[in-house]
């Protein structure tokens, strides 16, 4: 039995992450320290959450470019809720989920009901969400923008201190719970199956009786809700909400998904791929800072990663198609000995 091309692709992603781990373990002796690992897992949680959510629209053959805007708007609303109304962090996390889901619903309706292409719709709504975030920014009496820090203990408990000394952070726990939940949704429910069907062939899925409108909207809602959750956790980690919150997150999330092995055309990959990609991106970004490189290299390296990963995927898809054709020919010649 030969390996499926999808498993090969995942092995490549695992290999990339392992290679990075080996490189950094050799160059920095403190890499395997509990403290460093727990911080690494905390940092990858934000990106991991967004990427896991983004996996749904991407597997469905689309993309969600508005997650940066959703994080911007939801993050500032969360800080407002804590600062102005004094709500508990546990309430705000639920509200953040709902707000993110509502933004996702807007995306879904524009895409599935109105009929815009995914990237135009989410690009446009992303502008709107960023604008909303900028309009809601804290101002002093003179009308200038100021940052307010969060003082609520329940809010900060998510990001400030680990659960036990040098252990996991609450952010990481939330990430793992959500990732496992989404994996089950993706693999074990009808909704997940239909998402794959739409990503593989939209028309065929529709003709087979799948309610593609509903499935697409649900995918965007999941992506939005994950972004909303991430927005809450990011602000809890930063203890405030800067005006440029969420800038570039959609880009990083796409990079994570693509490196992890979720193909841009849709229909392939799952949340584990997104998880691997998020780990890869976080380790490489941490490494850049650790080696003392300038922060502008972060932009360049992220961009190159996306270009290289997508170029690899496009060539890999060609290779896989050729291999399939060859196998088919072999089985045509010797039908009896195929098994």
């Amino acid at each position, binding site marked *: 039995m030969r390996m499926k091309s999808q498993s090969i692709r995942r092995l490549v992603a695992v290999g990339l992450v392992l290679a990075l781990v080996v490189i950094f373990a050799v160059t920095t002796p403190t890499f395997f320290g509990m403290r460093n690992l727990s911080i690494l897992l905390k940092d990858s949680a934000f990106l991991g959450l967004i990427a896991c959510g983004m996996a749904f629209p991407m597997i469905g053959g689309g*993309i969600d*470019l508005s997650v940066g805007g959703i994080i911007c708007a939801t993050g500032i609303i969360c800080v407002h809720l804590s600062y102005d109304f004094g709500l508990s962090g546990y309430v705000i996390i639920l509200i953040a989920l709902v707000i993110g889901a509502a933004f996702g619903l807007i995306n879904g309706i*524009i895409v599935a009901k*109105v*009929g*815009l*292409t995914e*990237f*135009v*719709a989410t*690009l*446009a*709504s992303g*502008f*709107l*969400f*960023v*604008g*909303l975030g*900028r*309009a809601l*920014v804290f*101002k002093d009496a003179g009308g200038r*923008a100021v940052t307010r820090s969060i003082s609520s203990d329940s809010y900060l408990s998510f990001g400030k201190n680990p659960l036990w000394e040098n252990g996991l952070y609450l952010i990481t726990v939330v990430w793992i719970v959500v990732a496992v939940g989404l994996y089950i949704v993706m693999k074990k429910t009808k909704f997940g199956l239909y998402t794959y069907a739409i990503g593989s062939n939209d028309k065929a899925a529709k003709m087979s009786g799948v309610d593609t409108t509903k499935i697409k909207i649900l995918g965007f809602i999941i992506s939005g809700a994950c972004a909303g959750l991430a927005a809450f956790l990011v602000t809890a980690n930063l203890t405030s909400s800067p005006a440029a919150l969420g800038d*570039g997150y959609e*880009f990083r999330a*796409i990079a994570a998904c*693509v490196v992890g092995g979720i193909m*841009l055309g849709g229909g392939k990959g799952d949340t584990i791929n997104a998880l691997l990609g998020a780990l890869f991106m976080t380790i490489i970004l941490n490494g850049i800072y650790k080696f003392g490189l*300038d922060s*502008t*290299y*972060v*932009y*360049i390296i*992220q*961009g*190159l990663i*996306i*270009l290289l990963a*997508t*170029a690899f995927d*496009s*060539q890999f898809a060609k290779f896989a198609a050729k291999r399939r054709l060859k196998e088919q020919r072999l089985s045509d010649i010797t039908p009896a000995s195929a098994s």
Partner: protein
Amino acid sequence: MKKEVLKNFRVWIPRIIAFGAIFVFMAIMEPSFFAAANFIEIIRSVSVYGVMSCGMLFVVLIGGLDLSMGSMAGLCASIMFTIAQTGANTLSATLLGFVVALGVALAVGWLHGFFITTLRIPFFVVTLATKYILYGAIPLITSGTYIYVRGGTPIDKIGTSRIFDTIPILVVYFIVIALVTWFVLNKTVFGRRIYAIGGNPTAAGFVGIKVFKNTNVAYMLCTAAACIGGVILAANNQQAGTTTGNAYEGMVLMAMIVGGINLAGGQGTVSGVVFGALIIGLIQNVVTFMSWGDYLKLVQGVIILAVVIVSVVMHTRTVRGKSRKAKRLAAEPQE
């Protein structure tokens, strides 16, 4: 012929209404808006958007989009300013700087085309990636600071000269580039090919149009326009650096959408782009004039989303209407 004139007129009605609404609104709210100095300000910002939008038009017509325009503009301006400064701001150094910047822009444009056509990667992923790469490259060239030019240097003359001591020279670049774009799109074979590819790439390929080659050229024209736009913007501000042209692709995209250019490709005119650039320049000016700066992005977002949705709904309606009409015509003779 009469029908053609009527059709053109129908396109212009909403545009004139939009202009009228803005002017009436400002006449009521803030009469000092109508000062000559403010109009010169509007012309200046409109010119930069207009030059960049003309380049973007080529890419949008073939059904693509270039999200890296803002970063490209900033990078080209930085390259040109750095070379000019190293050459003590002589005319030849400035020209050399511009040529190098244009060369870099064309190379990046070709790379866009290569990734999009040969490697078949979606254009928004490619140009989003290069947006960040180019943005990250700016500080490497300017060594993290801003490069300023003093008055009297060639760069300063490019950006801040005035015709008859009143009208900014930037508007001349805009008019020239808009005319050239109009000529290329309507009077040359290449222009007709661009429309054909945007309308249906497969059909265009069957007709014998080299789709890959023409797509590459369209992306190269787009980055070249970004380069020119960035250079005149930076020359007008007398400085180049990381914030030069930052996020301009959003404004250019808005000019496209407001100008009625179909983002799916194949439909759009230069007059639409000119109108789009004028409107977004006006809106930006109005918002800053009323000191609603915090809400600028929100207003832009609402407009972009609303116009996109309306145009798509209108499009599906006309398509439906046409098919209904065709059915009726097909049914009539039998009665």
